[in-house]
């Protein structure tokens, strides 16, 4: 099968990446910011998979697989940190979590 959808994949992933970036920049809830990061990682994966179509060695798909592993690790540790921060600050609003150390 030829790779005639490649440019549409690229445009889709560019749109997904910019939507994820807008979510990260504008939203103030930490969980929603994490969702934006996941959207951006998925956009990158979509690019890699679209480029590795017809590749007999599947290098793009392998890279996407490792990106998925790293994304899982990132979101697990981030959620553990968020739960700890919620315990201390009693909020998940990023503007109110502004100090790292007790004054």
């Amino acid at each position, binding site marked *: 099968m*030829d790779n005639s959808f490649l440019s549409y994949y690229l445009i889709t992933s560019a749109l*997904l990446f910019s939507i994820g970036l807008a979510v990260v920049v504008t939203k103030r809830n930490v969980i929603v910011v994490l969702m934006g990061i996941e959207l951006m990682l998925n956009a990158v994966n979509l690019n890699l998979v679209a480029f590795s179509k017809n590749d007999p060695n599947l290098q793009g798909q392998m890279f996407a697989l490792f990106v998925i592993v790293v994304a899982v690790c990132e979101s697990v540790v981030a959620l553990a940190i968020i739960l700890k921060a919620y315990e201390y600050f009693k909020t998940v609003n990023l503007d109110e979590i502004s100090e790292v150390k007790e004054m």
Partner: protein
Amino acid sequence: MIQYIFIAFTVLTILSATVVLWSKNVLYAAFSLLLTFLGIAALYVLAGADFLAITQILVYVGGILILLIFGVMLTNQAGNKQNTKNDIFTESTNRILGFLVAGAVFSGLFYTFARARFMDIQTVLFETIEPVATTKTIGIQLMTNFVLPFEASGILLMATLIGAAYLSKKM
């Protein structure tokens, strides 16, 4: 026929990602993220990546999304009691500036993709082949060319396990 399926899943993905951006309710955002991940898995299938599509559904929909919803539920124990409906809302700031930055990134990417002629490069690099099952190739690649990243990701997963367990214990 396959173009219509492709267009349908692309529209599904983009629309539900837009709902993540527009919706104020955190749980609505989480559930439309589910639709986004499903649409991306379908796009993987259409690109001939069957193993990666199943991995996407297993890991993202079955793992990360459940984790995010747990995070939403655990961090809003007080709830929003003003309107007796218990909705969890998120605020947004810097809206104009954020959309400007995102639009600038999108137009930059679009300009690059429109200019770069990736199609010609692809057809020069790879011959057109019929899509086959990729699981065997991925397994062979993991044990030969990619064995170092494979082991490194094992160490990373163990470090994550220990780190998450340490972070979430009672101090």
